[in-house]
């Protein structure tokens, strides 16, 4: 079509401006893409840390229960609690930790202070249920709900003491992760804004340099849209190519990082992974936004030269 031909030939003939626009789009999208990637990975890491928040229900020692005359079916009751809680939609995992397992853990923690261990007689540690949540932010609500279960009241006695989830630690953790996300999000938003300004700036400069041409076209009787279309298509084209370049660079960075990280030991504990779909989505998003930014930039930049 005429407009497309016109846009392509203009792209070719104004190669300096075209290259400038493509570079700007590409570099901006690379930076944005990188920060999105970092935010994604960071989000996974934070989620991983938050997942470690769990609610512990310590049960009173059987002896104590015995003395209150309710020995029978203790394990049944615990099983019952476990089943009930597991059915809750907020809960992802419920794990029973026996007295013996707790003692093993304790001994391991204190292996360098044998005196402590030596002085413990028998097994003073309680058995417990550990409840992990799908959304750790609901820990407060779930804990409160746990405390209303009759069997928990029966077996854990002093609820405030025996239903535990490190309230303060959790609060602090969430405060930190919240602030990190806000900061990263703010930075990303700033980068996107800056990129938009820079890209429209570049396109505006390119079009400004051609304002005389635009004036001539108008004097020869071209309507505004007739003038506009090739510019918009050219901007779209530049945005597209820029996004393409950005994608190539991002894939390159991604590959190098991965091989480097996979060979090092860092990968292991960062559990560094992005699934394929997220990456493809990112790529498509970049290509699309490149084209949109390019054409919108042209459109905006043209306005002031198209007042008849």
């Amino acid at each position, binding site marked *: 079509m005429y407009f497309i031909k016109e846009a392509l030939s203009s792209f070719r003939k104004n190669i300096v401006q075209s290259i400038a626009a493509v570079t700007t789009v590409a570099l901006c999208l690379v930076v944005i893409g990188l920060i999105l990637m970092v935010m994604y990975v960071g989000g996974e890491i934070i989620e991983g840390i938050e997942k470690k928040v769990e609610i512990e229900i310590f049960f009173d020692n059987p002896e104590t229960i015995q003395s209150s005359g309710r020995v029978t079916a203790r394990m049944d009751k615990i099983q019952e609690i476990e089943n009930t809680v597991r059915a809750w939609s907020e809960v992802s995992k419920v794990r029973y930790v026996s007295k013996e397992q707790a003692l093993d853990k304790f001994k391991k923690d204190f292996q360098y202070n044998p005196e402590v261990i030596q002085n413990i007689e028998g097994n003073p540690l309680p058995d417990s249920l550990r409840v992990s949540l799908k959304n750790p932010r609901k820990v407060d609500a779930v804990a409160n709900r746990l405390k209303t279960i009759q069997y928990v009241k029966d077996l854990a006695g002093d609820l405030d003491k025996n239903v535990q989830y490190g309230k303060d630690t959790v609060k602090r953790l969430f405060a930190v992760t919240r602030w990190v996300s806000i900061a990263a999000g703010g930075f990303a938003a700033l980068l996107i804004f800056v990129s938009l300004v820079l890209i429209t700036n570049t396109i505006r400069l390119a079009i400004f340099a051609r304002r005389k041409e635009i004036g001539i*076209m*108008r*004097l*020869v*009787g071209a*309507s*505004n849209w007739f003038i506009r279309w090739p510019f918009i298509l050219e901007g779209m084209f530049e945005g597209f190519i820029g996004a393409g370049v950005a994608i190539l660079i991002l894939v390159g960075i991604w590959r190098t990082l991965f091989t480097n990280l996979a060979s090092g030991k860092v990968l292991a504990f960062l559990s560094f992974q992005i699934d394929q779909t997220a990456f493809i989505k990112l790529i498509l998003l970049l290509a699309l936004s490149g084209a949109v930014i390019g054409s919108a930039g042209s459109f905006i930049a043209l306005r002031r030269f198209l*007042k008849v």
Partner: protein
Amino acid sequence: MIRLKNVSKSYDGDKPALIDVNAAVTKGEFVFLVGPSGSGKSTFIRLLLREFLPSRGEVIVAGQDVVHMRSWKVPFLRRNIGCVFQDFKLLPNKTAFENVAFALEVIGRSRNVINTQVPEVLRLVGLEEKLDRYPDELSGGEQQRVSIARAFANRPPLLLADELTGNLDPATSLGIMTLLNRINRTGTTVLVATHDREIVDSMRRRVIALEDGRIVRDQLKGVYGYED
């Protein structure tokens, strides 16, 4: 075809370039616009094209009130006017062919028509061998001829020409004037601003003379002037 009523035009704050100009050109006329440098010839022509509005007065072109025209209608007005600009106003990124073709694309002519008509028009002005040159690869006179070719490529009912032959040698000028004459005879109204005494004197057409923004003479079968 053209009517100016009490038209004045002053560029911001300056002493006016046109003062109280009244003129009428009927369809099919051939008019020379003469006057010393800076007397307002280009301003006259640019008003007709609605490159800007007059400070005062009425400008009517092809029956349309140019002053109160809606801005979206302006391109349609201009498509009916072919104009040769004093500074050519060629698109630097388009070849001679493409420059002329652009005037036809604007009015929606098909590729076919363009491909036959453009070389034909460029041949008429003697540039058949330079179709693919960019403006800065052409000599001054050749650029002027591309501008001329573009102006009448789509056979507009009104042809304006500002300093038509300033960069052309007498022989080529004569050729162009003969061409204009022929175009005029097919019914096109032609208005030519020029300094070329030789041409004006030899053609003996209507002459409108400007001086300091005022019309000082409007003469059928006129000559360039009395001076020196």
